[in-house]
């Protein structure tokens, strides 16, 4: 079938032929995002450079009932930016200017296509800090981060993307442009619509500008690695740290399989003979950092950690953290297909959940690598499988169903930071319940009456 010629013509006239891709060889590289085993060829890919262009594309799409999928760098892990059939993929990577760093109000105004790393570096250059640090931060765009409400390693202490969004410029599916929020720390005028757009996964509008909150850059930080012979002990150590009223900025764990893959890639001397590894980072004032680090080290020793290594320099700490960030991709060394989940539970239930994941892997005879943000209960059990093996893929699905059920039973959620997209869509209605899903549907219908934005994602 394909996109109608008249739509392609109109796009080409409005954006210039160079900014509209239709050749098969150009489209295939846009037929996926960072999610495993999902693939769909779009009708075309367009590059937009301004809110006005975006508005025009959306008006055209509305008139012609053409689906539009907004995309940044395509690193999402729930299929959120996976094209729908014959859709327009609207790519924002060329809107990549940081417009303002306001040191007096501690804010940063940016276009959506700027990478998370560039934002973080722009803030650091003036002694400020943008904390959210998703694993793909070197290439993920801020527009995508806001749309998915991305988390990261520092979520435990600093929260997630939502906590740093002060304002948004959004184009509605019907083509109107609106500003939400402002530089005021306090603002209670009307519903907080900006919060509706954070995490809306490209279903309600297209983000064209983001106003971010920055905070002072912590004076110093200390990174430590503790190894354990049993996963349980590591989980207990985490609970004990939280119970001791310490909120480190990072409290990550890797299991044996993940440690091996990460070490294989990063070669930073991680111990290969332990069952679990905790990566801990505390930041802030020198005195507080020293005290917290000491207390955490003590707790780890009390929980019988085998070895405790303190990064000697900040650079070594950064190396350890970036090695951890590569965990998911590094696991791909083990198997042709790696399917990652992010079931999340209240921190008190961590040990229970980790044991459950382990049992499930045994029950379904699956290989699994688990890592995640232990400090905030956000686990990333990753199944190492092969998408061509349909029987095993079916077992993976069954295993995930059980994991989600258990997460919900423990008071957790089906996704902590990756979003619903296509990957969790089937689980959302049960998790939210009829009333909530109904409200979501009505909301979406009001903003996107023709249903053109990211159709088929999150819920129907």
């Amino acid at each position: 079938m394909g996109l109608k010629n008249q739509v392609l013509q109109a796009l080409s006239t409005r954006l210039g032929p160079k900014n509209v891709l239709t050749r098969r060889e150009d489209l295939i590289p846009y037929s996926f995002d960072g999610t495993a085993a999902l693939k769909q060829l779009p009708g075309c890919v367009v590059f937009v450079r301004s809110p006005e262009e975006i508005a025009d594309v959306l008006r055209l799409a509305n008139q012609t009932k053409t689906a539009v999928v907004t995309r940044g760098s395509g690193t999402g892990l729930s299929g959120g930016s996976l094209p729908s059939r014959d859709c327009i993929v609207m790519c924002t990577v060329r809107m990549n200017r940081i417009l303002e760093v306001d040191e007096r109000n501690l804010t940063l105004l940016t276009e959506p296509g700027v990478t998370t790393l560039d934002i973080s570096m722009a803030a650091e250059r003036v002694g400020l800090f943008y904390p959210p640090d998703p694993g793909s931060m070197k290439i993920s765009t801020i527009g995508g981060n806001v749309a998915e409400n991305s988390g990261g390693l520092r979520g435990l202490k600093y929260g997630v993307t939502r906590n740093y969004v002060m304002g948004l410029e959004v184009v509605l599916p019907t083509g109107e442009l609106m500003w939400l929020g402002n530089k005021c720390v306090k603002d209670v005028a009307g519903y907080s619509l900006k919060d509706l757009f954070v995490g809306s996964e490209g279903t309600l509008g297209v983000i064209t500008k983001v106003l971010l909150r920055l905070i002072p850059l912590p004076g110093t930080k200390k990174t430590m690695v503790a190894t354990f012979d049993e996963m349980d002990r590591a989980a207990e150590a985490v609970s004990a740290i939280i119970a001791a009223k310490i909120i480190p900025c990072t409290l990550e764990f890797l299991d044996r399989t993940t440690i091996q893959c990460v070490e294989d890639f990063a070669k930073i001397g991680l111990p290969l003979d332990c069952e679990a590894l905790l990566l801990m980072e505390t930041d802030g004032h020198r005195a507080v950092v020293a005290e917290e680090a000491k207390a955490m080290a003590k707790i780890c020793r009390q929980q019988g950690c085998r070895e405790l290594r303190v990064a000697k320099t900040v650079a070594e700490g950064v190396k350890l953290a970036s090695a951890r960030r590569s965990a998911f991709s590094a696991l791909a060394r083990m198997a042709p297909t790696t399917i990652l989940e992010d079931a999340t539970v209240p921190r008190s239930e961590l040990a229970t959940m980790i044991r459950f994941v382990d049992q499930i892997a045994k029950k379904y005879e699956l290989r699994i690598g688990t890592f995640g943000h232990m400090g905030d209960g956000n686990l990333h059990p990753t199944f190492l499988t092969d998408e061509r093996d349909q029987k095993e893929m079916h077992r993976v699905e069954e295993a995930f169903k059980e994991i989600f059920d258990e997460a919900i039973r423990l008071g957790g959620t089906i996704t902590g930071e990756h979003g619903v997209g296509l990957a969790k869509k089937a689980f959302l209605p049960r998790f939210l319940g009829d009333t909530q899903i109904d409200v979501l549907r009505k909301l979406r219908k009001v903003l996107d009456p023709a249903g053109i934005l990211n159709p088929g994602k999150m819920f129907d």
Partner: protein
Amino acid sequence: MLVELAKSRDGERPSYLKGLDYSVVQQCMHCGLCLPTCPTYDATQLERNSPRGRIALMRSIADGELTATETFADEMYFCLGCLACMTACPAGVNYAELFEQARAEAESARVLTSPWRRFIRMITLNWLFMDHARLQVLGRLMRLYQTTGLQGLIRRCGIMELMPGRLRDLESMIPEIQPNFSDELIAPRSLPKSGAARYRVALLTGCAQDLIFSDVNRDTLEVLQENGCEVITPANQPCCGSLHAHNGEWETAKVLARRQLDLLPPDQFDAIITNAAGCGSHLKHYASLLKDDPVYLARAEEWDGKVKDIHEWLVEIQFRQPEAKRPEVQLVTYHEACHLCHGQNITSQPRDILKAIPGCELTELPESNWCCGSAGIYNIVQPEMANDLLDRKLAHIESTRAHVVATGNPGCLLHIQNGVRKQGSDLRLAHPVTLLAEAYRREAHGE
């Protein structure tokens, strides 16, 4: 010849990508971490010009969803083959192999049909680089052109101004040919400077390297002799096949690999030394090239283990630091050849060597491991992209205020040298081994 390739759907043409172990294609989980390290993606921000985009195209061919089209082939040749994506890839995708197979696929599909291109490839890949004697004859002729004043005459008389811009650029890129080639500078067998030989090594003199940088080969020899190596350097060495493998001539690359193995049986040496990053990165993978060859496979495996880049080898045998009474202070910066840092994971060793040279102050080059645009013959076939990368590199070099740029690959040396010359700068380009050899010589002269 033992060639086991999957047949494509038309049943005639062998398909390299379909014949590939599918897990190699499947290894890419398209996480996107390669994107910021890819110079072509950085330039265009088009997924097609990125590693994961190219792998997606290769996979589509392997899956039978796409045939090797002209656009596909163009894309595979737009890739620099710098392998920065391999350093960035946590999943360990073997992009080098995929990329070579994809170019082979493009060649066997014969979708790039320009007669001029075919002619050039035939002359160079299938004739010139198949016999080193031919290359040397060409070298002599070029040397004559340069030394008889003909080059100067042609450049002055304005005839070049009448030529199309491309040809003019190409003429200006002709490197200066050395008066003596390696076999005139290096004996087939050389003993250590002093004492008994601790190691017996073979020295590979390269193709272009032999004509343009035979002095670097001699420097390499001297440095090896200074460090207790007996060095075997056969005259008239065959091309290692790197050029062919990188340019889709997979079968020819196999032929050349076997020749190399016959000439220098690895069991007779402690190490086989190369000083050209691009060659080294290929030379270490003969086993995967010859994996279906029962006669040569075992020898290829031994070979792969013994091939050492000169920097790697010197650090491994704990090379001797030269002494100096009056060290000559020079500010040196180091450009990492892609096929050293990304292709062979050699990053600290060249720096260790530079730091060991008395008077050498090493200053780090920003983006030192970002491709300079040379990339084999890329600067000839994709001049626009290559020049953009060169400009970026030159700007970084200028920011260091260094007097010397050291780099361990002939392609980079030439490409950056051309850029420096155009700028009218007196910056010196040198192989790290040359700087080390000079330091040993100064030491011997009691300086």
